[in-house]
């Protein structure tokens, strides 16, 4: 599916992974979005529509990447889109907590196009860690508009769209920073040495910019995080804590979903009898009403009452773990075990997701960088029993403990 240029101006959304890029995208587009598959690519770009002051813009969510020097499929897609599809504007989403690292991508995109608006996201998190960022100063240094946002609480997003809108009507106001590369010609450098030099210039430029812009009011802003990390990943209690957390989640999911499951099946199977007598009253032939009620309806009722409650409990709990940042620590703890199996520690997360739903687990495998390890994770995800394949939850406690032992 290609781009429909008639549907207004096209805005691309780029950024490092895990900076809340998708949150920005979802907040701007609402539910008006779909995934588009670009020709010849297996990585998909989500596309949505965003209205601002009666104008409709097409927003394209590019895959998260650290650089455009294309060494992964994601980076290639992002680079090709910015270079070849020529979006009318690019919003680069950055993480306020490690801005310097994010500027690498910003600088690379500024080399390609000057129609850039930088969105510094997670300002609330930075504030909590007492990191202050001089946004007007950053805007002066980069030569493009910079907007601070908190996408989760939708703060700053209208200002972001306003800046994007202004950049369309006043393109000459954008005077992006020119990165000065030394003259490599005639020095007899190899391709790799030139590459090294380019990377070095980008990183030191980012460092120079941040030196005056970012202020750490509390030098030990991450010391409490470090202390918690020391416990969560310690040799002694790292593993027991991890299993305990998983056990509690499973216990809450399995025993907690008994009640809504029982309730749902009571309601749904109660309806079945009425449906059956209704069809008999209508005089529908037996083979038809048996197929409809005892076949289709009963299966549907089973699936809903058995699978809906555990999913509705498991995924919010898992999201909670994700939000407090425990999941990367799990991957860190388990990486060596997975390395022994020639796979990656992040697979622990996709396998846990698989307990909720294998489809979600397989989709989650995109967090794994190496294509080989990703394939292993996708294939083996099937062996994790999802909710629907658990023993029927409300049959009794012995089933529950059986699953836990598994």
């Amino acid at each position: 599916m290609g781009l429909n240029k008639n549907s207004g101006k096209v805005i691309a959304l780029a950024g490092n992974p895990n900076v809340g890029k998708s949150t920005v995208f979802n907040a701007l587009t609402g539910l008006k979005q779909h995934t588009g598959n670009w020709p010849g690519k297996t990585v998909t770009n989500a596309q949505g529509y965003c209205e601002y002051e009666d104008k409709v813009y097409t927003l394209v969510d590019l895959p998260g990447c650290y650089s455009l020097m294309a060494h992964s499929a994601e980076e290639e897609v992002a680079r090709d889109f910015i270079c070849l599809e020529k979006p009318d504007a690019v919003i680069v989403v950055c993480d306020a907590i490690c801005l310097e690292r994010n500027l690498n991508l910003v600088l690379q995109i500024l080399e390609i196009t000057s129609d850039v608006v930088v969105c510094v996201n997670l300002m609330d998190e930075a504030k909590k860690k007492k990191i202050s960022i001089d946004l007007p100063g950053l805007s002066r240094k980069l030569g493009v508009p910079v907007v601070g946002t908190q996408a989760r609480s939708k703060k700053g997003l209208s200002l972001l769209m306003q800046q994007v809108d202004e950049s369309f009507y006043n393109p000459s106001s954008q005077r992006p920073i020119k990165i000065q590369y030394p003259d490599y010609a005639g020095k007899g450098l190899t391709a790799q040495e030139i590459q090294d030099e380019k990377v070095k210039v980008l990183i030191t430029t980012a460092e120079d910019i941040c030196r005056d812009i970012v202020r750490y009011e509390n030098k030990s802003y991450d010391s409490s995080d470090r202390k918690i990390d020391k416990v969560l990943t310690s040799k002694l209690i790292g593993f027991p804590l991890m299993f305990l957390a998983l056990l509690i989640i499973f216990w809450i999911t399995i025993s907690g979903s008994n009640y809504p499951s029982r309730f749902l099946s009571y309601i749904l199977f109660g309806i079945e009898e009425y449906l059956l007598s209704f069809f008999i009253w209508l005089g529908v032939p037996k083979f038809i009403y048996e197929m409809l009620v005892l076949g289709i309806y009963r299966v549907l009722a089973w699936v809903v009452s058995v699978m809906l409650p555990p999913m509705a409990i498991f995924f919010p709990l898992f999201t909670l773990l994700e939000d407090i940042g425990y999941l990367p620590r799990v991957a860190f703890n388990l990486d060596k075990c997975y390395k022994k199996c020639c796979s990656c520690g992040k697979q622990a997360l996709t396998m846990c997701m698989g307990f909720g739903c294998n489809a979600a687990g397989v989709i989650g495998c995109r967090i794994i960088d190496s294509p080989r390890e990703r394939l292993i994770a996708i294939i083996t995800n099937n062996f994790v029993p999802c909710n629907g394949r658990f023993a029927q939850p409300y049959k009794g406690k012995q089933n529950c403990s059986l699953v836990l032992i598994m």
Partner: protein
Amino acid sequence: MSGIDCLTSLEPGRCAVVNDLTVTGSMRRRLQDIGLIKGTRVEYVQRSPLGDPVAYLIRGAVIALRSEDSDCVMINRVN
């Protein structure tokens, strides 16, 4: 104690400065993308319970590296 060594040999709690990367191709670019270039300061943060990978503080971000990857990063120790 100074001199060139690989990052894997860095002791817990100590800092070092990157001197060189001994790997080429996409892994080299990957390491460069996380900010590992000549002169970058690296701090040992935390070992995982099984000893590998190890988390390092690199340019304000905590990043875990497997030993085979940190083997490719040559460092000078600093005090």
